[in-house]
Each structure stands twice: as C-alpha cells, then as structure tokens.
C-alpha cells in the first residue's frame, strides 16, 4: 500500500456529515457513523433516530447528567433536542424499513459494485454474530451511506466485485465514504465522486477491487 496519508476516522465522519441536509431524519450505525453527529454543518438541524425508539437525539450526556433510561443504540447516555419523541422498537424499525428516514449511515466490512453490503459477521469468526438493526435499515433506507476504511488492516480492498463476507443486504448502498474516496453506487456501476487529498483516481482504483468509473475531473475531498 502506498504510504500516503489517508483520512482519519473522524475525517471520514466529517465528510459524511456533509451529505446531511437541514431537517433530515437520520439513523447512525455503530463505528465511524456514530462520530458523524459531532461534525454537522453549522446552522442545520438533523433529527437523529435511534432504533430503541428515539427521534430527536441530541448530544451525548455530560458527566453528571446521564440518565440510563435515555441511551442510544450503543448504550451511551444521550440528550434530546426540542421536538423529540419516544416510541417502541417496532415503530422505530417501521421507520427504518418503511423508508421513512431520509438517510441511514452504516459501517461496513465490504461493499460490492452493485451495492450489496456485508457488515455483521466476519467469516470463520467464532460466536453467534450480531445482526441488530442493520438488515432492516439496509433493506429500507431511501439513502444508505456506508462509512468505512477503504482497505482492511492487511491492505485487502473492501470495495469488491462480490462480497465474500456474510451479506447484510443486497443492492442497498447509495454512497460509500472511505478514507480514500467518496463513491456513488449507480445503475451503471461505481462512480468515483471525490478522492482524498494527494490521491489520484488511478491510485484509488489500485486500492479497489471493483471497477471505479471516472466522469471528468475528480475533485479532492474538501473538509474545510
């Protein structure tokens, strides 16, 4: 792998946050997506959804203000913003599965060129695995963004022709934000929208198993 700087996990979250628009209803999954709330563009309000029955989650609770009946899907005590509401888990997933949320952001182990997602189990791992809400979310999301590192720790590409890991959902991903690129999943295949600073489209392609289409000039990912 070229020894060039890549985006940090925080920077991936920061870039993904710019995909969110004012007033959007948004679910954030485990991992990098959970960092996105820290990087909302100024001046916009986003209503964060939690699968345990919250719409309108605010920031994490400060020390001393934690209420353990008010936690997010990662069990972290949170706060509410004005206009928040509670409901039971079935309605929470009616929102995810029924296409009522504007955006969902999940972590990923692999994404394929037709937008299949694998994110719940590593092949050969011991133990039961954990599905949680990811299959409901991926099946129903109007706009599904996956945030992940571009390569595994061993350098293997995570954007592949066909997922070899157990699938979470098929043909469900709309956009992939990694430490190297922003990529859109289209009917014609994967399109490289932006590349990390200092990375050429060819260098990003070399880290990617699936074919990336380049349409005109590919701008740098801008975090400013």
């Amino acid at each position, binding site marked *: 792998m070229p020894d060039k700087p890549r985006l940090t996990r925080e920077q991936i979250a920061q870039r993904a946050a710019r995909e969110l628009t004012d007033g959007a209803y948004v679910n954030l999954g485990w991992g990098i997506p959970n960092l996105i709330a820290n990087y909302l563009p100024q001046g916009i309000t986003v209503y964060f959804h939690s699968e345990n029955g919250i719409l309108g989650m605010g920031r994490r609770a400060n020390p001393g203000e934690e*209420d353990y009946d008010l936690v997010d*899907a990662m*069990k972290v005590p949170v706060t509410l913003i004005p206009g928040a509401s509670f409901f039971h888990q079935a309605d929470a997933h009616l929102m995810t599965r029924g296409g009522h949320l504007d955006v969902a952001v999940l972590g990923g182990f692999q994404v394929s060129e037709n937008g299949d997602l694998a994110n719940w189990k590593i092949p050969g791992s011991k133990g039961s695995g*954990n599905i949680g809400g990811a299959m409901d979310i991926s099946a129903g999301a109007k706009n599904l963004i996956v945030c992940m590192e571009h390569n595994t720790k061993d350098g293997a590409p995570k954007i592949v022709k066909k997922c070899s890991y157990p699938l979470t959902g098929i043909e469900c991903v709309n956009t992939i934000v990694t430490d190297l690129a922003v990529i859109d999943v289209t009917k014609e295949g994967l399109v490289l929208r932006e590349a990390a600073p200092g990375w050429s489209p060819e260098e990003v392609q070399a880290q990617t198993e699936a074919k990336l289409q380049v349409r005109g000039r590919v701008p740098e990912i801008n975090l400013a």
Partner: protein
Amino acid sequence: MKQKIVPSLDAAVADIPDGARIMFGGFGGAGFPNNLIQALSRKGIKEITAISNNCGTREGELGVMFKNGQVRHVIASFPGPHSNYFQERYAKGEVTCELVPQGILCERMRAAAAGLFGFYTTVGVDTEVANGKEERVIAGKRCILELPIHADFALIKAEKSDELGNLTYRLAARNFNPIMAMAATTTIVEVDEIVPVGSIDPENVITPAIFVQRIVQAKGTRYAG
C-alpha cells in the same frame, strides 16, 4: 375487579414451568425486568427458550440465566459484545440460537399478537437469515416469508402501572416492552410504582391493561448490566 397485583417477585414467576418460551424486554441497559429475571433464575428454572434482543451483559440482565445454564434456545437479534456467558454456552453447543433482524423480531412478535400467521419482507433476502424460508417476488421485489413468534410468558419492565395493568414507560426504556406485552399469553410486569385506577390519563396509557396479567412492584436492581 380481577386481582393482578402479585405480592412478591418470587410469587410472580412461581408457576413458570421448565421449558417455557419466555420473552424478555429491554435494550441497551434500559427497560430490563431485572428483578423478575433474578427471581426466575433463583427459582432454578431450566431449559427455557428466551426471546430477547440481546443475551445479557456479563452477569447482568439475561446473563445470569446463561451463566447458570438455564437457557436451551434463544431467539435474539444482537447478542451483544458483553454476552460472554451466552457465547461460552453457544460455543459448546449447550445453547442454540436463531438470529433475527431486530425489526423483524418486533414484527414477528406483533404478528403473534395480532393473530396474523406471517408476512413477507425484503429484509434478509440472500443473507443467512433467509435460509430455509419461502421466497417469492411481490411488486417486483424478492421477499421472504417470516412467521410469528409466540411466547407463553413475557417478563417486562414499565415505570408505572395502575391496579388494572395500564402501563406507562420512561424515556427509551419503553423499547421492546409494549410489543412483548401484546405477544405473550401471560405478561408479567415489574414496575417502580403502582397507582390507583383512574390516576393515569387514558391519553397517556402506552400498554392497555388487557395485555397485562400480573403486576409486581420492584425496588431492587434497575440497571444490571
């Protein structure tokens, strides 16, 4: 008025037999019927099928039941990063597990509650979850058939009950509890407070009393994980 209030946790679970199918509410540490779970474990129950989002947090929540080897089969969505007692038994083959997508777990319980015999969904198509399930195309979408999940008992947690069993919940401690209350034959609720009939505004009732068979006040463990 039918008396639903039970004097003790132990009395509330006394007739639950070995081998029962039992739903347990709770998510993310909130809304678990921890005191009922401890009473059930204390009674020495065996061979249950547990239906729950997760499989305990160390010894907490359902963890104690796995630690003591009291669960034979579990239907869960997210066993969880700290479900070590479940994972140990699962690795040894002492517990079997059906993993279910979380929203589908809810809807399968709701189907049971609603007298429905199944539904089709795109969730899980082409994944391990689809193994052995009927598939058909509806409106151009590949779907799989999901069947209801019934239970003999539901152990749930609410904040407040009136003497009839009308329930209110607190914040995100609601989660699976109202769904399980509707799906089980016998629902046993532990609450912080029991109030007189008529003192909960009907507009604010989340679980109507028709779904609740036993009420017990519990002042012990709130967060066990």
